[in-house]
């Protein structure tokens, strides 16, 4: 198993951001879906050794993320949710830094290759402060992909990318999968998850409320409603069914207003 978690849990003070998560991810594209604040990034941070779980265990390629963190870092690549590229350096310098830090062999060729793949070849020698937002995002992907990891973590990688870049990224990720890489991705785009992910998990306030292939998830609610369901429908059903106590309570709100008079 590339990724395995057993009862993975993380609190921030009283708030349970990740609640008893059990996952097994193999050589596949695995999508983690959830509303803002569901706990996706927190999960990724624990799996990439950046945050310690409160309880539970997690293994990447059989290495414990806490006790064997150094080994874990050798087999992963990670693209964080927030962009961080050096605007004073050129695109090539940005990618070269990571190629060197990952210890990539045959760096020059590899850096050019990945810049070309991300559609940045012509602008590679320009400073990044002249790049557009989407180009910076592509550069960030190039930094992670310059190394050929066994497990790739992508936290909302397609945010702000145009259609062409998005398609290229997914094609590249699919080819990585064929080469044996496991991909763990979080996204808010249901259509992408539906099209490209082998399996998805839906996370709601720290808990996994559904996990299966997109088509199975859709089939399961097919029996409940008449029209052809999309992954959006699955998502809204799973999340709102769980979300009642904490959600917007019409009745309580009205009584609250009445009392204030």
């Amino acid at each position, binding site marked *: 198993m590339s990724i395995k978690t057993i009862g993975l849990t993380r609190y921030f003070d009283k708030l349970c951001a990740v609640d008893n998560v059990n996952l097994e991810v193999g050589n596949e594209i695995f999508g983690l879906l959830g509303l803002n604040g569901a706990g996706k990034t927190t999960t990724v*941070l624990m799996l*990439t*050794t*950046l*945050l*310690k779980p409160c309880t539970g265990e997690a293994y990447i390629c059989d290495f414990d993320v806490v006790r064997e963190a*150094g080994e874990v*870092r*050798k087999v*992963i690549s*990670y693209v*964080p949710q*927030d*962009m*961080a590229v*050096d605007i*004073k*350096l050129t695109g090539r*310098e940005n990618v070269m*830094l*990571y190629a*060197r*830090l*990952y*210890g990539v062999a045959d760096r020059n060729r590899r850096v050019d290759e990945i810049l070309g793949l991300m559609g940045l070849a012509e602008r590679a020698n320009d*400073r990044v402060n002249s790049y557009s937002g989407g180009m910076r995002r592509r550069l960030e992907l190039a*930094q992670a992909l310059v190394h050929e990891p066994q497990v790739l973590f992508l936290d909302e990688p397609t945010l702000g990318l145009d259609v062409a870049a998005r398609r290229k990224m997914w094609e590249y990720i699919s080819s990585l999968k064929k080469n044996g890489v496991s991909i763990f991705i979080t996204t808010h785009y249901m259509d992408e998850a539906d099209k490209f992910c082998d399996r998805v998990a839906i996370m709601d306030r720290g808990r996994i409320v559904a996990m299966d292939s997109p088509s199975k998830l859709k089939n399961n609610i097919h029996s409940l409603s008449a029209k052809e369901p999309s992954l959006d429908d699955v998502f809204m059903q799973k999340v709102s069914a769980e979300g009642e106590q904490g959600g917007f309570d019409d009745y309580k709100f009205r009584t609250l207003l009445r009392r204030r008079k």
Partner: protein
Amino acid sequence: MREILYYFERDLKRWTRSRKSVFSSLAMPAAWLVFVGLALPIRFTDNYLDFITPGILVMTMLFASLQGGTLLIFDKILGFLNKFLALPAPRESILFGKILFIAFRGLLQSTVILAMAILLGVKMHSFMTVPLTYLVLFIFGVLFSAIATTVALLVDDYDSYSAMNSMASMPLFFTSSALMPYEMMPQWLRVIASLNPVSYAIDTVRALFSGNFLLDGMVELTAMVVVVLMVSVYVFRKATV
């Protein structure tokens, strides 16, 4: 080990590509030397410029090192640190890269001061004075840039870092032997000054300028560097976000 140079090169490029910050960091210490050494109305010793130059050199290194902690703070706030910490490169190479860059930049600033001091006629004992002075300043810079970078890793935001920075830097400087000889100090200040690591560096450089070599000062500073680096490496290896 090579990773240290990669991190160093990144910071160096980022710095040198901003002309304004290069200019201001080189001009500031020179202004200090002129102000304190020539313009200040008080004189604690006969040739005050000779006396104050070692103090200004060490002060420059001290402020450069403490200021250097903000490099890591910004890497942290802007999300670079997260990416670096998840890389297979040993995490302490982030620390050593910062130390190397901060000390290097501090030594460049010191060079400006040394050059000005020589132009202004400050006497140096022998040709060995300059390289040995660099060595002392480097060790001293490593000490404080390691402390600054490690503190920066542990605090959450820029404001608390700069608050701690200003709380530490001025007292460290003014309770050292930078501005006046020990004989001129009040008793309480003499005690503090003789314990202050900033004084060790200043006294050692001052001795070099008059042709003596204070082995004690070097040994004490080096011992402190070893202890601080061990703690810092440990903290970096264990760091979480």
